[in-house]
């Protein structure tokens, strides 16, 4: 057997060699070294198996997506709580739920579904309340509220509540991320918080274009 013939069958070779192949390996140091090297590479490859782990935020993102898509369905009577994350989950749900209520309210208002006697008092247009200033609400948030009040006064209070909730969420998330910049979970929740705020603005601005 020649070296060319041996290398041609090498891809198919397992641990069992034919007598001819064994004889060739015994007599040819080049092919013997080649087989030895390839086996060493293969063996070393095994040691690389699954040694790294993805960051915790990967699972968090998957879980959020599964819940949003309705693929996670909690069993009745079972409350699944992660104590370390409970406050985060509740805080995350607050602005999300509030945003959902705003959207629903906007739809109802658009379709004239809100009875006149249930319509909220109109808030004064262009007035920046002393309360909001004192609470440290960002100026752009107050401008947004004034804009909402000018177009759909009945929605102003709902937007104000939602902005308060999402600002509190951002504040908490920023503090945690600041305390431990390497905490991936805190970073993800901070991203979520900003996204929630962006969603509120988007809804408010979408309305202004209609």
């Amino acid at each position, binding site marked *: 057997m020649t070296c060319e013939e041996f290398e041609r069958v090498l*891809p198919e070779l397992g641990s069992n060699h034919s007598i001819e192949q064994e004889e060739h390996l015994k007599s040819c140091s080049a092919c013997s070294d080649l087989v030895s090297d390839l086996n060493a*590479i293969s063996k070393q490859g095994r040691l*690389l198996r699954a040694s790294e782990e993805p960051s915790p935020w990967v699972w968090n993102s998957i879980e959020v997506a599964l819940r949003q898509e309705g*693929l996670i369905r909690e069993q009745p009577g079972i409350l699944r709580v992660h104590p370390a994350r409970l406050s985060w989950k509740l805080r995350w749900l607050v602005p999300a739920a509030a945003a959902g209520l705003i959207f629903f309210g906007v739809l109802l208002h658009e379709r004239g579904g809100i009875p006149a006697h249930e319509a909220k008092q109109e808030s004064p247009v262009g007035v920046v309340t002393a309360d909001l200033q004192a609470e440290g609400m960002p100026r752009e948030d107050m401008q947004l509220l004034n804009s909402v009040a000018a177009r759909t006064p009945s929605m102003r209070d709902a937007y104000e509540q939602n902005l308060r909730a999402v600002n509190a969420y951002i504040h908490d998330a920023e503090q945690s991320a600041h305390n431990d910049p390497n905490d991936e979970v805190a970073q993800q929740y901070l991203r979520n918080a900003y996204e929630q705020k962006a969603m509120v603005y988007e809804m408010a601005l979408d309305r202004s274009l209609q």
Partner: protein
Amino acid sequence: MIERAKQGNAEAFEALYNLHKRRVYSLCLRMTANTAAAEDLTQEAFLQLFRKIGTFRGESAFSTWLHRMAVNVVLMQLRKKGLPVVPLEENIETEEESPRKELGGDDPRLAGSIDRMQLQRSIESLPPGYRMIFLLHDVEGYEHNEIAEMVGCSIGNSKSQLHKARMKLREILKTSRAEKATKP
């Protein structure tokens, strides 16, 4: 656990994720050599799996099914970037990719002198098609029939690609060792 996941049990999903996350992430990481990209691909692979979990009938091992999804996700990513994936025909490879034949060479053996970091770096420099087969077979331990099913090639092609991957790695490792030896 799979049945509970099919019913939408959150803990079952998380348990399946924890059981398989390392292998999936490891594969994605070695294919992309980028942690952010690997995490995105890992997330995508598991999401696809969980969305389709209702269709799993147990024809293959769950881990094989999952890794097939992971491989598909990685391959799609490579195709998006315009990178070559496993060639279906054995002869379709560039001159640069093809390992040199070293019959009758006089180099000392690699055995006993390959370190893990060196091998990892060498794997990263393999062409994507070779890299995928090497990772699935030699690192993750899949058999050629499973690999063939995952990547959509023949068993013979899988064996041939693996051999070429190992030959290419040998070439890279020897070159790297020779370069180190000549440095002052």
